[in-house]
């Protein structure tokens, strides 16, 4: 078994090379795309039915994105569904960004490695989830307090793909029935909150047909421009988390007057695109939660916790209108035994969730700092997706050599990426006693010095 696995790993690059070379041997029999525009994170669900028309088995499938979309792409996930409708289980597939030398118009690619290479003549079905951030462009770009927010969404009616597509349909779901305008690429149909493009038959590779949809979206465009999460591990029994947020409303900019009387007396009309609550999902058994900013405690927050989860509802000091910003800090403590484990090889590891605990928010730049106890060695992090990593040293309570800090950085993070990650390190329990011993010896020396001083005579002349 192991030998075969090794063989597969060894063969994979070769296979992929092979499959890339004859990419056009694949064709898409049927493609269905559902675009969800209800929040400010655009979610695209794709279902492909792929057939290998070539002669050699194919193990890779390529997804193509227009360059504008590729910049906003936060997440690509692919999975194969097995089983019947009710008992569907998804087996995730590996997705890697790739480059193609002959890509037209700077299109970007991601390759999906299929579970089993697709032999000639075989078909396979799999599903892909894309998440796009900052893809809804507010228009008008500035609105007043009483207006609701209208946004543009740009895409193509036809799925961009390096493969021939026999048949495809696109469904677009808007948050409300108010759609100002949308491009028509016949057949186009609109029912309620759903727009249907297609079905289109037999489109050549790299077909593109731009569309614009102009519609109302009053969902909170909550964007955390910068989030620094500090996870401090103390072997004395707690995990202290401090999260520094820089929050912004990334929707249409607020223009002119903010009238409190209108905001308070007509909450359904006035400031409909603004938001004043945010919900953070914290781990269970959370304690000593605080919510403050640089000028003190923010009193408007509620914590509800039960055995499975804790919900922290926070309100920034003022409602956030388009373009308004706020900064705040959330901190809390967690029991260590829920998050620190010992791996079979004797090393310890911290298991914590990546990403931002706030619901429905995009994080432009996320920095996670895992502060390991003083004296820990050989730190290494395991994250399910590519992140930038480096090490730092920080000093806290009576540190002499400093604590090792594992820093993980990632841009464009969506809530879907709140998956656990691990930081492994080795630690000798003796180091736990270093600081108490240091303090004890300092006090001991102080008392010895006092005793010595009281028993000696330092006067120059005897009187």
């Amino acid at each position, binding site marked *: 078994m192991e030998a075969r696995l090794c063989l597969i790993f060894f063969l994979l690059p070769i296979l992929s090379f092979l499959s890339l070379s004859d990419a056009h041997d694949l064709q898409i029999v049927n493609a269905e795309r559902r675009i969800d525009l209800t929040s400010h994170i655009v979610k695209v669900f794709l279902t492909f039915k792929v057939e290998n028309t070539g002669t050699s088995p194919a193990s890779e499938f390529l997804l193509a994105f227009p360059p504008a979309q590729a910049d906003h792409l936060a997440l690509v996930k692919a999975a194969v569904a097995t089983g019947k409708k009710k008992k569907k289980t998804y087996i995730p597939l590996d997705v890697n960004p790739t480059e193609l030398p002959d890509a037209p118009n700077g299109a970007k690619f991601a390759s999906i490695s299929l579970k089993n290479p697709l032999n000639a003549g075989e078909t396979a079905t799999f599903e892909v989830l894309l998440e796009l951030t900052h893809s809804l462009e507010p228009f008008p770009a500035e609105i007043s307090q009483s207006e609701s927010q209208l946004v543009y969404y740009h895409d193509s009616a036809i799925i961009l793909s390096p493969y021939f597509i026999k048949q495809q349909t696109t469904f677009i779901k808007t948050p409300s029935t108010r759609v100002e305008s949308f491009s028509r690429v016949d057949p186009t149909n609109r029912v309620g909150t759903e727009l249907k493009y297609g079905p289109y038959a037999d489109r050549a590779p790299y077909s593109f047909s731009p569309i614009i949809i102009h519609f109302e979206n009053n969902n909170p465009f909550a964007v955390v421009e910068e989030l620094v999460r500090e996870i401090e591990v103390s072997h004395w029994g707690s995990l202290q988390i401090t999260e520094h947020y820089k929050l912004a409303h990334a929707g249409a900019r607020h223009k002119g007057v903010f009238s409190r*009387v209108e905001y308070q007396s007509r909450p359904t009309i006035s400031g409909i695109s603004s938001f004043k609550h945010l919900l953070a999902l914290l781990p269970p058994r959370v304690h000593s939660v605080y919510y403050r900013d640089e*000028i*003190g405690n923010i009193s408007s927050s509620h914590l509800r916790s039960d055995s499975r989860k804790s919900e922290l509802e926070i309100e920034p*000091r*003022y409602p956030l209108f388009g373009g308004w910003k706020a900064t705040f800090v959330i901190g809390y403590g967690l029991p260590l035994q829920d998050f620190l484990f010992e791996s079979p090889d004797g090393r310890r590891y911290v298991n914590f969730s990546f990403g931002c605990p706030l619901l429905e928010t995009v994080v432009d730049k996320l920095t996670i700092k895992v502060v390991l106890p003083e004296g820990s060695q050989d730190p290494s992090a395991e994250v399910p997706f590519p992140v930038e990593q480096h090490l730092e040293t920080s*000093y806290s309570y*009576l540190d002499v050599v400093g604590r090792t800090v594992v820093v993980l950085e990632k841009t464009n993070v969506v809530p879907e990426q709140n998956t656990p990650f691990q930081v492994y390190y080795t630690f000798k329990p003796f180091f736990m006693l270093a600081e108490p011993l240091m303090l004890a010896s300092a006090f001991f020396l102080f008392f010895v010095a006092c005793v010595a001083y009281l028993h000696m005579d330092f006067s120059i002349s005897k009187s």
Partner: protein
Amino acid sequence: MAAIENGKREESVLRNAFGNVLSFFILLLIGILAFSIRLFSVIKYESVIHEFDPYFNYRVTQFLTKNGIYDFWNWFDDRTWYPLGRVIGGTVYPGLTLTAGTLILNSLNIPLSVETVCVFTAPIFSANAAWATYLLTKEVKGTGAGLTAAALLAMVPSYISRSVAGSYDNEAVAIFALIFTFYLYIKTLNTGSLFYATLNALAYFYMVCSWGGYTFIINLIPMHALLCIVTGRYSSQLYIAYAPLVVLGTLLAALVPVVGFNAVMTSEHFASFLVFIIIHVVALVYYIKGILSPKMFKVAVTLIISAGLAVCCAVMAVLIAMVATSPTKGWSGRSLSLLDPTYASKYIPIIASVSEHQPPTWPSYFMDINVLAFLVPAGIIACFLPLSDASSFVILYIVTSVYFSGVMVRLMLVLAPAACIMSGIALSEAFSVFTRSIKFQLPALLQSEKVDAGETSTDTAVTQTDAAKPAKSEEIVKERPSKKNKKKEKEPVEKATVRSRIQKKLLVLPLEASVIAILLLVLLGAFYVVHCVWAAAEAYSAPSIVLTSRTHDGLHVFDDFREAYAWLRHNTDVDDKVASWWDYGYQTTAMANRTVIVDNNTWNNTHIATVGTAMSSPEKAAWEIFNSLDVKYVLVVFGGLVGYPSDDINKFLWMVRIGGGVFPHIKEPDYLRDGQYRIDSQATPTMLNCLMYKLSYYRFVETDGQAFDRVRRTEIGRKHFKLTHFEEVFTTHHWMVRIYKLKPPKNRIRGKTKRAKSQKSSSTTSTKGSSRKRNPWQ
């Protein structure tokens, strides 16, 4: 016999050791008490900086810890007093910020934030102040009085009001420095040691660094020295206590940038120099008296007096000439208003407008020093029995501070330590009298109850104890001076005999009376404690930036100030200028990090008057003033919706007064109807048209349809109006802070003639020309 002696000595050593340990623990507890009674604000609210001035100190401390001491001295702050700026390094008393800056334990890698240190500086220093009070009172009247005074000071409401956690102000540190300086002065006076004299000068230096109130020290100590000389108590100790302090202290004081040459140039310091000359003359006289025969001495006196008078006249003439050249006769405004309580209200409305500069009312004495007010006279009497240098100093201290506290509420703070010392002395003397009388009679009583027959034996017992007691007290009294300088020993021995004679003379009070008196005193003390805890918890712990109100459906938090400042901080441009009344200047710079026009420093009356004028002008004129100052946002505080009484409408008359003091076209009577300040339908048109009224009540009527102002308890006079030159950009949740933006100047051209004009000159100059009469900012 020798063995008994030895045993006695051992016993007394043990007792001493026990007493020392006991008083050490009592002091420790007093320190903990002083610290923890001030934490109500943190527990009830949060760990946050309070009020107005502490925010400035906090900002300075942040700058100091970030940029270091040298940048701090050279700091020119361009975020206040726009466009003038302020030289912070040279205009601030650096003691507090330097203290807090060094408290930050970065060397041990303890991550204390600047804010935490600032919040807890005041409670820490009040513990120090309590210990300093113990030392001072111990020098005056012994350990018992010292402990009582320290315990009283630890919880005196007047001091709590200025030193609760978060109240990060100069006074918090300065009161400690003040008491400690006095202690070292008395200590030097009692010992005649140059070591303490030097320490005294250093403590004085710390005081100068900390607070403008150092002038109190440099006037009180010369007064005491003079008093001693006049009453014939001149001694070499006095000289050692006084002369080095003046020389070293003045030199050190001149090192502090904010004082600088003021230490030798202003009238506040002249008293010390005058007494310095006098003490030298007296010292010389005593010296000459010592080496000459009485006859020769008389000749010398006449000779020297004639020569000395001439020199004195010359010096005085020079001094008077120097003083007369300065417009205020060398006195600063605040000092002048101390000497003449009516001065400020007559000439400087900006000093009079501050509530803490008003004279206090009688209830505020009861509120701030409570039962101490009744104990002080007893303490004064106790200080006269017997009168020593130290006790005369304390008497002088209480007398002067009572006067000063009567002029300004703020100086109640100086009175509080004096009152505590006096009450401590009074209480401990009273207790010692009562307990002694109980002690004398209790054995007798017990014995008479036990043994019915045997009256003679009880009699002898009484006489025995009676005889033993004075001997013992004599011993104790003798012990104290033996620590002191040998030269002084003669006098205390005399004193001790005097005291023992007095004690012998003192009739032992009846047992019942003394028991009841002790109970009453304990009751009084308990009342004091209850009052102090109440004052600390309820009256003085509110941070004033967060307000709470308790209604039947729970606690309501009004966090509007920080809401507004946070909004300004995050949603305006970093270089935007915000105009508001000066009260909110420090908070705006510290919390919102925006440039302000005026702040609580109030160093430039004209600038404040400009803002006052703008607030009391009609919209257009106000817009022009603000526009000429480059202001982009105007912030007003409005309490009408929730009933917050200290809002801008209630402060408005001071804006009119201060504005009118510089720009005479603003006249106070225009805003008053028959001498009454009102904003209802009877208000004057000038009032209803001024900017402050409009910004406060803009669209207020839409909240309840009535426009009922809950602070003034009336419907407002003008309900429906529009703003033409300002637009509302932010109003907080409870409407307590409203922020308006100046609309950009209009570029519409009305007629042909105007167009011709505006083509010649730019639009800004044309507005200037048309408004030359009204715009004071030119």
